[in-house]
């Protein structure tokens, strides 16, 4: 009997496929998310749009909030640790959190090194905006990836860019000859063996979800159409006018992302989605996606 194997960690993410993982800030929101059909919840102290508004240093959530959420739902509970913050991750693991997001939404604790995730029993999800980041995170032990769409903006454009870029880079790698792969590994800054695996299989060895900027059911469906395995929704749900309806609508649109009539139906009278921010209005110090490459 073996725990914490890469098959067990990656397999857990496979079971989330086609699903929606929702940010929640308390037990009550967690129950709303579960009832709406979320496949997991991310327990947080503040959603990204509030973190953005508040400024200052954003850290791992108060364990009380995480525990409260774990108590009230039967679906998996995820929580965020700062990039490179080994101890926050160990604390979350000791509490029995099901998945850790080493997240750029929080203020990085280390500007060079990510957490060495292979030595943990519980799995990690990490953000990646290109194939280089994706494979570096996998090498460190990430069992699941997600795009690094600009969090808390309600603007899907960055998540679209990241997913398109990664998928395009995978197609390019597939077409390279073996001798060209050595140079590509150097250019991307990734291990040759992992790149060879991409060359041979034409896909990432772990699931890749869309995250950052998903604000409507159509946004979620767009990301599925572009090849995401599932969707994280952060500020989008509990910053909307009617979270319950919104959550249900996003779940249905993710499952039936090619059924446009159904998406029209579930999108009716949802009220105002979160307001959103034009990305070009953010100056570079406010761009969370540039953290932890």
């Amino acid at each position, binding site marked *: 009997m*073996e725990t914490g194997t890469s098959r*067990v960690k990656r*397999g857990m993410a496979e079971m989330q496929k086609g699903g929606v993982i929702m940010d929640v800030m308390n037990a009550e929101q967690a129950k709303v998310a579960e009832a709406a059909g979320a496949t997991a919840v991310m327990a947080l102290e503040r959603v990204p749009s509030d973190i953005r508004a508040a400024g200052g240093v954003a850290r791992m959530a108060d364990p009380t909030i995480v525990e409260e959420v774990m108590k009230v739902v*039967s679906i998996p509970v995820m929580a965020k640790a700062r990039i490179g913050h080994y101890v926050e991750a160990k604390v979350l693991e000791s509490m*029995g959190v*099901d998945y850790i997001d080493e997240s750029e939404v929080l203020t990085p604790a280390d500007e060079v090194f990510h957490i060495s995730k292979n030595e943990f029993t519980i799995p990690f999800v990490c953000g990646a905006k290109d194939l280089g980041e994706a494979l570096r995170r996998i090498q460190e032990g990430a069992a699941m990836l997600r795009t690094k769409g600009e969090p808390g903006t309600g603007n899907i454009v960055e998540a679209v860019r990241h997913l398109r870029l990664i998928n395009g880079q995978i197609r390019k790698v597939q077409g390279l000859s073996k001798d060209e792969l050595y140079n590509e590994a150097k250019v991307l800054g990734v291990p040759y063996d992992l790149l060879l695996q991409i060359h041979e299989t034409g896909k990432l060895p772990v699931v890749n979800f869309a995250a950052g900027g998903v604000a409507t059911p159509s946004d979620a469906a767009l990301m599925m159409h572009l090849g995401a395995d599932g969707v994280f929704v952060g500020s989008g749900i509990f910053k909307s006018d009617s979270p319950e309806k919104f959550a249900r609508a996003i779940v249905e649109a993710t499952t039936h992302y090619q059924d446009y009539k159904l998406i029209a139906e579930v999108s009716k009278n949802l009220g105002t989605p979160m307001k959103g921010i034009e990305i070009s209005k953010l100056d570079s110090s406010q761009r969370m996606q540039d953290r932890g490459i």
Partner: protein
Amino acid sequence: MQIHCAAGFSFVKEGESVMKIGVLALQGAVAEHIRSLEAAGAEAVAVKRVEQLDELEGLVIPGGESTTIGKLMRNYGFIDAVRQFAGQGKPLFGTCAGLIVLAEEIEGQEEAHLRLMDMTVARNAFGRQRESFETDLDVKGIDEPIRAVFIRAPLIKKVGKDVDVLSTYNDEIVTARQGHLLAASYHPELTDDYRLHAYFVDMVKEAAASKA
């Protein structure tokens, strides 16, 4: 791709018709089941609408989150449709969340889903993700042990008299069969060993032959 094939199982024989088997594709590990069913010699399709059931000889309910899958099944009329499907003697195979969906009763939960298999199941019976594991498992009807991946897995706590226990882990039931219904607590679809899928494909062939 190398196919692991133990003695006693035949995948596709010459002159035999290929079974068309669906994988319920509302949420979860759908692609993995399709790959495994195809490797076991069946034709496999993702099922998103109830109308698709008419053209199928068998159905897999995959791993995923049982609350999500159950809820979406209710939304889209799959509860009655799959019960009818099973009522025609067509085989079903549920893994992990799929096993929960098949059960007559779920511990600590008022509402069960399909209520087709006479068994009581416990969700997340081993604990949280850090307790998830893989192990070798003997399964009745399969010669050598299979590699079983348990992820926040359920257990079968009680079975009715028509249910045949196919395997146990630490004295708890993890694989069971009731006539044309098959359930596993773990994820055979996460390995390259297709023997449990081949076992199910054989169940589908038998059911189709008995109707012909």
